[in-house]
C-alpha cells in the first residue's frame, strides 16, 4: 500500500494547471492514485477479451496487435447504441460549470479531473476519427490521434471518476460524466484493460454469489454468526431462511453488509427487523449480492450480474423482492433492472404484509427499498421504538450519490432517522441531497493501492462531516450504501477520526423494542447505551 501524506500536507492542493496544453501532457501515474491491473484468471472466468499479465507501471501494456482498430470499432459501436454518448460527445461548450464540482478535482487539483476535461480526453478521439471537422483540422478542432499514451491517459482518468453524477447536476445540458466513464471503461475492456479490484469482485460475484467469494454455505455460516451475535446482545435470535421456495419475499442485500464492520451491524439490523415482524422472507445464496460491481465498467456485465435477482425470484416463486441499503445497487434497480432483465411479470405488485400498503411506485420492478418498507412500518405505527437507545449516537446523514442523483431517495431515510434517534443534524446544504459529495471510492475505486486518491476524493465529504462534528458534536455518519460503510471508516479515520460510520437499519435495530427482549445495555456494537456507561468496562 502506498503511504499517504498526513492530512495537513494533503490539503495543500495545487490546482494551477501546467503551462503546456493538456493534449501534449502525458499522464503521469502517481503511486496511490491508480488501481492495479486485473489478473487474467478473472477475465477468463467472465469471458472478457485479452486476459494477460500486465502492470500499470510497465511501458508495454501488452496490448493486442490491432488494439487501435478494436478500440475505435468499440467506440463507434457505442456511438451508435447510446444517444447519450453521441450527444455528450457533440454538445459540450466547455463553459466550465462542472469544473469545480468533482470531488477528485477539489481534493486533488489535477486539471484533467475537471469533468469537462476528463470528457475531452474521449471527445478528442471522437473528433479525430468520427467527425469531418476533426479529420480535416486536427488539433485546431480539438482532435488528436489515438496513441498508447492517450490510451494510458484515458485509463488513468477514467479510473479517477467514481460515476457520482454530481457534474451532471450542474451541467446546463445535463452532460453526465458517469455515462461516459462507464462507456469509456467498456472501450478499455475491449482491448483488455481492466482493474483487479473490480474484476476480482465481479468474477467472485459471478460464480460464488458475492464479491467476497463466499459461496452459499459460507454465506449461511456468516449469517448464522450474526444471529448468534443478535441473540447475545438482545436476547432475540433471528431465524433467516436460505433459498426457501414459496417465501413471500426474497431479500437481497449488498454483500458488503455481511463482509466487514460496520456493514455487518446493518445486516444484523435487517435480521432483527425481519424477526420482529415475523416476515415471510428468504435470503438466497445465488442472488446473494445486490451491489452490482459489473455495472461500474460495463453495461453488459451489470446485466449479467443483475440477472440473478429476477431469475432467483422466479425459481423460488416469491411474490416480490426487498432490497437492502446500497447505492450503486439502487441505481441499477431503479434505472436498469427492468430494462435489462424484466419484465418481472412472474412477480406481484409489492404489498407490505404488515401494513397492507401497496408499493405502487414499484409496480413494474417489483422491488422495494428497505428504507421505504421500514418508513411505511413506522408511519403505520407497526414498530415499537425507543429513540433514547440511540442517544449515544449523534448522526448526520450522507446522501449516497446513486440514491440521490439516479433515484431521488432523500426523504425515506431521513424519516427513519428522525424516528429512531433524537439528535440528527444535516451537513451544509451545498453538500447534501442532489449536491451530495461522493465518498471518494465509488465505482470500484476502493482498492488499497488507490488510497491517496480516495483520501483526496473524500475530502469534500469529510470536510462537511468535520463541520457538523465541530458545530454539533456529530459522532456518526449514517448512510444507506455498502460502499460507504466500507470506505468511510478509513476516510474518516484519516480526516475526522472522531466520527464513526453507521447504517440506518443498525439504528433501527438499536431502537426496536422486542416484546421478550433482555434488558438492553449496549447497542449492536456492544457499546454501552447512554446511562449504562459505568457498568461496562471491558468493552469498547
Amino acid at each position, binding site marked *: 500500500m502506498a503511504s499517504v501524506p498526513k492530512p495537513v500536507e494533503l490539503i495543500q492542493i495545487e490546482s494551477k494547471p501546467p503551462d503546456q496544453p493538456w493534449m501534449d501532457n502525458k499522464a503521469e501515474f502517481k503511486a496511490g492514485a491508480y488501481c492495479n491491473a486485473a489478473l487474467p484468471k478473472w477475465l477468463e472466468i467472465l469471458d472478457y477479451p485479452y486476459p494477460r499479465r500486465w502492470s500499470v507501471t510497465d511501458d508495454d501494456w501488452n496490448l493486442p496487435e490491432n488494439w487501435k482498430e478494436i478500440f475505435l470499432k468499440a467506440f463507434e459501436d457505442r456511438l451508435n447504441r447510446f*444517444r447519450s454518448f453521441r450527444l455528450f460527445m457533440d454538445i459540450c461548450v466547455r463553459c466550465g460549470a462542472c469544473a469545480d464540482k468533482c470531488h477528485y478535482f*477539489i481534493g486533488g487539483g489535477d486539471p484533467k479531473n475537471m469533468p469537462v476535461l476528463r470528457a475531452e480526453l474521449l471527445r478528442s478521439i471522437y473528433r479525430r476519427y468520427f467527425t469531418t471537422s476533426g479529420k480535416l483540422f486536427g488539433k485546431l478542432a480539438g482532435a488528436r490521434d489515438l496513441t498508447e499514451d492517450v490510451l494510458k491517459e484515458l485509463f488513468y482518468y477514467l479510473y479517477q471518476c467514481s460515476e457520482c453524477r454530481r457534474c451532471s447536476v450542474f451541467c446546463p445540458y445535463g452532460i453526465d460524466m458517469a455515462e461516459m466513464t462507464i462507456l469509456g471503461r467498456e472501450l478499455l475492456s475491449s482491448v483488455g484493460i481492466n482493474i483487479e479490484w473490480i474484476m476480482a469482485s465481479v468474477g467472485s460475484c459471478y460464480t460464488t454469489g458475492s464479491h467476497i467469494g463466499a459461496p452459499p454455505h459460507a454465506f449461511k455460516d456468516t449469517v448464522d454468526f450474526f444471529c448468534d451475535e443478535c441473540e447475545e446482545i438482545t436476547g432475540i435470535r433471528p431465524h433467516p431462511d436460505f433459498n426457501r421456495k414459496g417465501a413471500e419475499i426474497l431479500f437481497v442485500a449488498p454483500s458488503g453488509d455481511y463482509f466487514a464492520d460496520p456493514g455487518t451491524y446493518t445486516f444484523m439490523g435487517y435480521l432483527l427487523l425481519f424477526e420482529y415482524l415475523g416476515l415471510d422472507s428468504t435470503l438466497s445464496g445465488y442472488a446473494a449480492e445486490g451491489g452490482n460491481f459489473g455495472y461500474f465498467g460495463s453495461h453488459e456485465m451489470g446485466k449479467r450480474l443483475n440477472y440473478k435477482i429476477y431469475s432467483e425470484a422466479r425459481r423460488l416463486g416469491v411474490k416480490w423482492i426487498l432490497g437492502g441499503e446500497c447505492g450503486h445497487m439502487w441505481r441499477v434497480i431503479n434505472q436498469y433492472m427492468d430494462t435489462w432483465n*424484466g419484465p418481472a411479470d412472474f412477480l406481484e405488485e409489492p404489498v407490505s404484509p404488515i401494513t397492507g400498503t401497496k408499493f405502487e411506485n414499484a409496480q413494474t420492478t417489483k422491488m422495494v427499498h428497505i428504507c421505504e418498507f421500514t418508513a411505511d412500518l413506522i408511519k403505520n405505527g407497526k414498530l415499537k421504538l425507543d429513540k433514547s437507545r440511540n442517544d449515544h449516537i449523534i448522526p448526520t446523514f450522507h446522501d449516497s450519490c446513486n440514491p440521490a442523483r439516479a433515484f431521488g431517495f432523500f426523504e425515506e431515510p431521513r424519516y427513519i432517522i428522525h424516528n429512531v434517534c433524537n439528535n440528527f443534524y444535516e451537513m451544509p446544504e451545498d453538500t447534501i441531497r442532489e449536491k451530495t459529495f461522493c465518498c471518494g471510492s465509488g465505482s470500484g475505486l476502493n482498492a488499497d493501492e488507490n488510497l491517496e486518491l480516495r483520501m483526496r476524493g473524500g475530502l469534500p465529504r469529510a470536510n462537511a462531516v468535520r463541520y457538523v462534528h465541530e458545530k454539533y458534536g456529530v459522532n456518526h455518519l449514517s448512510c444507506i450504501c455498502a460502499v460507504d460503510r466500507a470506505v468511510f471508516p478509513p476516510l474518516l479515520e484519516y480526516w475526522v477520526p472522531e466520527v464513526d460510520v453507521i447504517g440506518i437499519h443498525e439504528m433501527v435495530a438499536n431502537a426496536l423494542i422486542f416484546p421478550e427482549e433482555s434488558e438492553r445495555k449496549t447497542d449492536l456494537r456492544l457499546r454501552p447505551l447512554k446511562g449504562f456507561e459505568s457498568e461496562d468496562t471491558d468493552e469498547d
Partner: protein
Amino acid sequence: MNFIHAYYFSLFAVVALLFIPYLGVRAGLEAFFGIIIPYLAFIAFLGGVINQILKWARTPVPYRVPTTCGQNKTLPWVKRTIRDKFENPESMLYVIGRMFMEIVFFRSLFRNMRMELRPWQKYPEGGKLIYWSNKWLWIGALAFHYSFLIILLRHLRLFMETSPSFVNLIESVDGFFILSTPTTYVSGIILLISAIYLLLRRMLDIKLRYISLASDYFPLFLILGIGITGILMRYFYRVDMVAVKELTLGLATFHPTIPDGIGAIFYIHLFLVSVLFAYFPFSKLMHMPGVFFSVTRNMAGNNRWVRHVNPWEYTPILFSYMEQEDLYRKQMKKAGIPLEKDIDLEE
C-alpha cells in the same frame, strides 16, 4: 495547441474573414457575397442541422437515466415539493416543465457555485472548503442568449414585406431604454458586453483557459464581429436600409437582386453571418438543438412503475442457479440449504 495559439488563431481567422468580402465587393463580386454565399450558408446550416439532429434522433436511448435532483415519487405521504416534482419528474408533463426551466431559464446553470479551500486553523487538518453561490455565468449566459435571440427576431423585418406585430413590439421595447435617432437598441449593447464577458472569462480564468479550444474562441470572435459590424452599419456608416431590405427580401422571396449603393460594411456583416450559419452545424453551437435531446433531462424518473424497453437489448452469457448448485451441491447440503437436485451425503 496552447491558449495563445488557440486565441490568436481564432482572432486572425475572424479578421481574415472580414477582408474576404471587403476585397470581393471592391472586385465587383456583390452578387457572389450578397446572393450565392448567403444561400450556400443557409443550405449548409439547414442541411447540417437536420443531418445532425437525425443522427441523434436515430441513435437509440437504451436506458432511462435522468439525473434526479429532487425527491422521487414514492409513498403518497412522503413529502414532495413543487421543486421536487420538476427536478425529478414523474410524468411527461413535469418533464416538459423541467425542460422549459432548463431551456428558458437555464435552470442548471442557476445552481452554479464556486468552491474555495480556505486555510482554517481551527480544524486539525488546517483547511475548510466553502461554497458560495455564483450566478455570474448564469447572468452572462442569459444576457448573451436573450440579446442574441432578440436581435435575430428583429432581423425578421428584413425578410418580410410587412413585419409581424411581435417584431414591432420587440423593437419598441428594445428601443425604449435609450432615446436617440436612429433608435438605439439595447440588445446590441448587451450582446457585445456579454460576449466580451464570456471571452474575458475564458481568457482570464486559468482553468477555463486550460480547457478552451480554438473552437471556443472562434464563435465568440465571430459573433463579436457580427455585432460590431452590425452596430457600425446601423449607427455610424448608416447604410441605405431601403436598399438592404430590397436585397434581403429578394433573398427571402427567391427573387434575389443586388441594389446599388449598399456599403461594403453590409457585405462584411452578411458574410460573417453566413459563416456563422455555415459553421453552426459542425460546431459546439449545436448545443442549441442538442439540449432537447439530453437524456438526463428529458426523461421521467418513473422507472419503477413504467417499463423502459431497450431496442437492442440482447442476452449475454449468464450464470444460472443450477451452475452454482452444481459447483457447491455437497457443501450446500451439509449446510442445510435446500437443493434442486438432492443428494445423499452418505454415498
